[in-house]
């Protein structure tokens, strides 16, 4: 009994306990949604997309480390980055499963989740996204499965282990497939908004590019952040220091590229010109919401400029604590960006759109407890999966040298 009590008081047990509570809270929210439909959310006909779509977009963006590292290691054969490939695939797998959980609850008819696979509308960017996400999730499953099957637990089924090993040998092909699918849907998620001619604040070709660049930076950034954090907790360096520095610089330059296009996007549409729809929507957003604050301070300064500084200044890059702050802010910035992108176009509907503007200048949306609970539950699941994987699988050890 005493042993059990001591065991339960261990930090890991407390952490897992907290995560299980979060998952339970999420399950309650999920059941509420399935029973009563989307009326339990704060969504409405003016703002039909909200927290869960943000959750879904962020999870997919932050899972982008998987395709980036798989491509770097298995396709471009940058051998030195190999220690990062496994954690990246794990984070990607968790990200995509999170996104699919959120999406499943967010559609009005979860019982018809399979319809996009059967009824194709090739003209819909969302159809392309759905198909790519499903296919890429299958790729991620095949990439993660060998890591799971290596566990001594599966030693009693040698055939299963051999199958896992064979699957692992196919990793380069999976990496190629994954890169193709990811390049498609990571950008198409931006195009989901970018192609809507009726909403000026979204209607621009820069959105797909901004989405894929921020996904590459954020996805790799999150993988590195988790790696450094786990290392700090375990008092061990999990990947060679040189790898950490290389990856940091890669993320830093990607952030700079993203920042460059993002600022030009702003300057071209809102500073050097007065695009009527965009200007009108921005005016209404600035008058009624903290859009300026979240865009300039949270997204640009805290989410991009500060991380870029930390990642690219050598003295700061060599400081693990500064790195944790910088990468954490970058991940935060990507999430704020997905929220701002989704909500900005919906909160400020097209000016004089009959029915919307029956006196409505800006629509409003506040997530309900059910939405927050489900999001908390999905985040709980993500941390739970990551913690258990790091604890029981060889995520951070060098894979055995049996390449033959």
């Amino acid at each position, binding site marked *: 009994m005493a042993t059990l009590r001591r065991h339960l008081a261990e930090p890991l047990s407390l952490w897992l306990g907290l995560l299980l509570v979060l998952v339970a809270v999420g399950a309650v929210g999920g059941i509420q949604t399935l029973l009563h439909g989307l009326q339990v959310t704060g*969504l409405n006909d003016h703002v039909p997309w909200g927290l869960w779509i943000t959750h879904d977009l962020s999870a997919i963006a932050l899972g982008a480390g998987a395709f980036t590292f798989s491509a770097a290691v298995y396709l471009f054969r940058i051998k030195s980055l190999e220690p990062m490939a496994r954690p990246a695939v794990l984070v990607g797998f968790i990200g995509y499963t999170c996104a699919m959980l959120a999406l499943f609850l967010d559609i009005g008819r979860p019982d018809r989740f399979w319809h996009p696979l059967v009824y194709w509308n090739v003209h819909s*960017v969302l*159809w392309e996204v759905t198909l790519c996400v499903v296919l890429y999730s299958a790729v991620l499953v095949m990439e993660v499965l060998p890591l799971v099957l290596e566990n001594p637990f599966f030693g009693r089924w040698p055939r299963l282990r051999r199958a896992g090993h064979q699957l692992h040998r196919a990793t380069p092909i999976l990496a190629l497939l994954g890169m193709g699918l990811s390049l498609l849907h990571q950008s198409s998620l931006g195009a989901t908004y970018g192609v809507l001619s009726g909403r000026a604040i979204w209607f621009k070709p820069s959105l797909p590019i901004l989405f894929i660049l921020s996904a590459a930076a954020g996805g790799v950034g999150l993988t590195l952040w988790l790696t450094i954090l786990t290392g700090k907790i375990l008092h061990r360096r999990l990947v060679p220091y040189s790898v950490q520095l290389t990856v940091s610089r890669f993320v830093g330059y990607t952030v700079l590229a993203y920042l460059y296009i993002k600022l030009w996007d702003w300057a071209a549409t809102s500073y050097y010109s007065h695009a009527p729809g965009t200007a009108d929507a921005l005016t209404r957003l600035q008058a009624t919401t903290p859009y300026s604050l979240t865009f300039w301070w949270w997204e640009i300064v805290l989410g991009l400029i500060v991380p870029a500084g930390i990642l690219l200044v050598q003295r700061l890059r060599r400081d693990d604590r500064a790195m944790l702050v910088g990468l954490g802010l970058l991940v935060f910035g990507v999430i704020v960006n997905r929220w701002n992108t989704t909500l900005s176009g919906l909160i400020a509907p097209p000016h004089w759109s009959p029915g919307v503007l029956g006196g409505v200048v800006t629509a409003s949306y506040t997530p309900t407890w059910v939405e927050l609970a489900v999001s908390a539950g999905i985040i709980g699941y993500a941390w739970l999966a990551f913690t258990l994987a790091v604890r029981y699988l060889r995520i951070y050890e060098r894979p055995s040298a049996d390449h033959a």
Partner: protein
Amino acid sequence: MTKKPRPLLTRRDALTIAGTTGTALAFTQLVIRGPLSAEAMRGIGSQTHPASASGAPHQWRMVIDLAECIGCNYCVWACQAVNDVPDEAMRWNVGFPERTENGVDFYMTRPCLHCQEAPCVKVCPVGATWVREDGIVAMDYERCIGCRYCEVACPYDSRRFNWRTPANPNPHQPTWGEAEVERRPRGVVEKCTFCTHRVDRGLSQGLTPGVDREATPACVVACPVGARAFGDALDPSSPVARYLAEHATFRLREEFGTEPKVHYVHPERRTT
């Protein structure tokens, strides 16, 4: 003597695979252009929901004369009764007072505009909504997954999502009509159908939509001052074609490139 193990996939192999896949994809696109093109999508819809019984081409359009409209709201209520829309927030045909820049008061009503280049149709991931050959933007409630992308894409706010099971009695029945279509279930999107059921049934009975009341959208029939006209734009003698020929009309937000099929007569039109 040890031989360097050959990797399962060299970079060259990878590029070859990428190239082959790309070519194959491009080829597939060309091959499937037929069955998966916009025309074919419409075809799929027409099979499940026949566009017209007679087979003759039609192009249904509506004119709303804002100078004639007296703001009685009859069209709004008739629509709610006939299409069984009990929830006031989900009206397919909305009406509200407006004022022109010159200070002339008028009453704005707006059904679905049935755009030829409908943004909602392009974005639907499952093809649950499509432009029929006769121009009507139709919905398949059995296929809709409720993702609400069409609602986000529509620049006219014409679409409504069933957030809850519509269970309450319809306050507009039977005063303004009886339900002629089934209520939609929770979780799918709905919108004005141009009273497809009336148009299609009317045609099969040899009636002329826009002229015969039973074959004409409920809102047009309900209007006491004839401010709404409906009919086949391809038929020069139809009420809608005559209206379009005799009046200057405009369409909402033409700059969006959506090509709506609902035309408006300006409220400041000089009455003769």
